[in-house]
């Protein structure tokens, strides 16, 4: 069963950050294959100032996702990111668990 009752309320954190004047983006795991560490629906909130809440992996790809989130905030356009062992970039960012994951990154606008 996948988490749908989000104990750590990343959305509430994102809303609070935005209310405090921060620029915020939300990244969501939308598809997984193999042994990806976090199920679809897992969220990471990112601010332009560099604050992070939640997770979309066990820490392997959060850095790359945060970079993409900053780009999404700058451009205003959402982006679908692919991480996996077949992807050389995934090795760079270290998704070494053998799983594959798609992450949707969008500005909170």
């Amino acid at each position, binding site marked *: *069963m996948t988490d749908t*009752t989000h104990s750590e309320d990343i*959305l509430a954190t994102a809303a609070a950050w935005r209310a405090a004047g921060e620029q915020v983006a939300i990244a969501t795991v939308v*598809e997984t294959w193999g042994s990806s560490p976090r199920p679809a629906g897992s969220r990471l909130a990112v601010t332009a100032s560099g604050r992070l809440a939640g997770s979309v992996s066990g820490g392997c790809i959060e850095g790359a996702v945060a970079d993409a989130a900053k780009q999404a905030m700058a451009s205003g356009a959402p982006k679908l990111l692919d991480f996996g062992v077949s992807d050389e970039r995934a090795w760079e960012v270290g998704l070494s668990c053998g799983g594959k994951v798609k992450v949707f990154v*969008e500005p909170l606008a």
Partner: protein
Amino acid sequence: MKAETLARLQDERAAQRPVVLLTRLTDGAEHLWPLDAVSDALAEAARAALGSEKAGTVTIDGEPWFIHPHNPPLRIIVVGAVHIAQAMAPMAAPLGFQMIVVDPRRAFATEERLPGVTLNTDWPDDAMAVLKPDARTAVVTLTHDPKLDDPALDAALKSDAFYIGALGSRRTHAKRVARLTELGHGAGAMARIHAPVGLDIEAVTAPEIALSVMAEIVAARRGAALGDPRPLPAPAEGRISIGIPA
């Protein structure tokens, strides 16, 4: 995500209404079901996701949509505003549970002892009639007092509660089984009760027992074998893993 969508989603969640966020992955277009009018195919996907509690991507009319269900929190109904209930309270919310404590003894069931917990000071049979445990509810009795525990267990056994646990030693439980049998519950019902309550981690203190109970509830929720009730013990066995000896 639009700030307006986020606000509406959070309103629905705060009101504990099931809601599904539908996001088109090509451009971020989004809807909330059942609030917004959507195509039949999207509505069907949303309904299915709420039922399975699983988020995922589906292709509808050639477009990828992320279907993200948000069900209200699972509930834990605890009978007995005792020390173990106090220790369970701060663990419940981070694990995704709303905790409700039932105890007609007003000296126990106080906001000061259980901050942030929903308190119900009715008698357990009245409380359970209102709370209506369902398949997304766990029921745990902690009072050691048959007058309070038994009516709650009786109601829980008549419900679809996914977890039923009762504090007390094996000896206490044997007596409890006899009383519940007299109320008309059969062996199948008895086999649903986790007693002694909690995973056997040799818990001694209230926080340790709370941890073992919460772990067992999570195991039951996730379908782990550890979450299955243990078979009724042979009465000769002397060791008491959890609970206060009768």
